[in-house]
């Protein structure tokens, strides 16, 4: 299949357990960065909202420190709120990704917005262990350098140096492998793919021409175009797909110039002012010819390929 698997350098072939090879596209680094950024914003908002709500319940922070130490009922209530807060932060930090990636969509809200999701690298099932493994490492990749800097103090050269070295190893890890794997993906055996979304388009070869009649002043009744074997033999699959694209985009200029090229090549000019019908007929007949060849095991990749007949 010429060209279809070469849309970008991020295309890979994945073999499902049924033995079907499915082309997939590895998510770009930009999309993944965007997804993580959105997720962090969501997490920060959640954390701030929780903190704010708990402070509101606690009734302000001014007397907080003093009352926390008290052994009274109010003190116990405050302690309870404090525990709720600590646990909530821990959960936000560690369970947020787990919860969403274990759902049927295999993506956090950020990933969903970026149009990406996680999958198993070997084509098999995505298991809970994989999701857990890839997210445990996230903690070390992203949060730890911040802790380094906080512990060493903002003006400690060594702290910054360690943090930068850390970033260089883990954060830049996806830059140095083909599949944009981060360290967590390596450990888990997962990768991040683009989510395909494509509607079934009408087949061109059976269109019932709903073309507007008013633009060509009553001329050109539906003409019948027949192309001879020799006229069809000049093009291959690559040109067929290019023609299909042009017909689907349906831009007048492009249609005209493609018509010119083909008409010149096969030395015909009877499709004047009726380019689309001419090209559709040529497309259908070229496809019929090439598909008939395919069934016989003969394929013609493009116009430069020799005809096997």
């Amino acid at each position, binding site marked *: 299949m010429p060209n279809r698997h070469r849309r970008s350098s991020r295309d890979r072939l994945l073999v499902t357990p049924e033995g079907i090879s*499915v082309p997939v596209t590895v998510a770009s680094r930009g999309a993944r960065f965007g997804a993580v950024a959105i997720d962090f914003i969501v997490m920060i908002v959640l954390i701030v909202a929780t903190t704010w709500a708990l402070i509101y319940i606690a009734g302000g922070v001014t007397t907080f420190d003093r009352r926390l130490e008290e052994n009274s009922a109010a003190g116990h209530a405050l302690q309870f709120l404090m525990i709720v807060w600590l646990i909530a932060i*821990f959960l936000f930090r560690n369970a947020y990704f787990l*919860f969403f990636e274990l759902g049927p969509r295999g993506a956090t809200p950020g990933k969903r917005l970026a149009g990406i999701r996680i999958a198993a690298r070997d084509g098999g099932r995505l298991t809970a262990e994989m999701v857990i*493994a890839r997210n445990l490492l996230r903690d070390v990749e992203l949060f730890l350098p911040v802790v380094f800097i906080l512990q060493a103090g903002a003006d400690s050269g060594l702290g910054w140096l360690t943090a930068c070295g850390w970033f260089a190893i883990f954060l830049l890890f996806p830059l140095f492998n083909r599949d944009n794997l981060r360290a967590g993906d390596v450990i888990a055996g997962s990768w991040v793919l683009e989510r395909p979304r494509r509607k079934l388009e009408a*087949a061109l070869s059976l269109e019932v021409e709903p073309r507007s009649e008013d633009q060509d002043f009553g001329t050109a009744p539906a003409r019948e175009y027949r192309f001879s074997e020799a006229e069809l033999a000049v093009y291959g699959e690559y040109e067929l797909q290019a023609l299909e694209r042009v017909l689907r985009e349906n831009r007048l200029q492009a249609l005209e110039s493609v018509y010119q090229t083909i008409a010149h090549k096969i030395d015909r000019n009877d499709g004047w002012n009726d380019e689309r019908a001419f090209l559709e007929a040529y497309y259908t007949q070229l496809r019929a010819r090439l598909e008939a060849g395919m069934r016989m095991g003969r394929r013609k990749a493009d116009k430069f390929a020799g005809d096997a007949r």
Partner: protein
Amino acid sequence: MNAMSTGTDMAAGQASAIASVALRSDRFRLEREGDWQRLEAIVTRMEKGRLRSLSDEDLLALPGLYRTVASSLSIARETSLDAATLAYLEALVQRAWFVVYGPRSSLWGWLRGFLGGGWSAAVRAMWVDVLVALAVMVAGTLVGWLLVAHDTEWYSALVSPEMAGSRVPGATREALHATLFGQSGRSGMSVFAASLFSNNAQVCILSFALGFALGVPTLLLLVQNTALLGAMLWLYSGKGLLLDFTGWLAIHGTTELFAILLAGAAGLHIGRSMAFPGRRSVLVAAAEAGRRAATVMTGVVLMLILAALLEGFARQLVDHTFGRLAIGGFMLALWCAYFFAFRGNHPRIGKRGRKA
């Protein structure tokens, strides 16, 4: 030959839309389009998370439809040059594959299988690393003890001043005794427990994740932490408080140190399988070890929750050495029994199974 029978076919094609189509590949497509669109509708609904709105029939039909469409794709690749149809089928098969082979168990379903034997099986599967980590921890403790016994200067190097507090060489027996007992009246211990937990959990996650660098940093982290322990043991034993200190430590320490041991072993397991992948590729070896280690690590977090509760509450409330030792010993026995004697039903892990 110029007879592409388009015109005649189209003209005669009132009887059946499918029969009238000129191209075989289009006939192929029209005959199967219904299945494709049904699968797409099901997959779209599942992607949107509306599982409830799916009828049982649709759910049952999903795997069959997935295979039908997958085989349509392989046939289309060999017979059709309609790029749009091929692209659609490829995308549809991929989306259906995501759904069919997506995470099968919910977080809770997984947890059940995990506690029912998956966890202990994963621990047993890395017994070599557990032994290595144990040896390293024992060695670290000894090193800490010997270093400080040799030269007390080492104490301040191993134990940071703010952590040591009054527990410094030269402190009186009474001062040291006071750090072990008589804190049951202290308030705020629940907060203390919660913060202990989240601190310890992050340390354990760290020692696991550092296994990624071939396990060397994991070993260093284990040695560093246990050397500190060794130094403190030396300090208390010098004042004849060794047993009391052991009790103070054991009540939560058997659980906490066990958790640290497992986290270190999990890190080592990853590091070892990346350094010596054997016949597998490094990536495959890392992924296998990583999944097993992740299972263990989830358990480690649970153990740390328990350890923090013991440390925050039980140690403050049980104010005598015998009780502390009893609780600590009981926990140790419990963990050993669970990890090395309990067999459970672990192959079921990750599959909800049974409850269809």
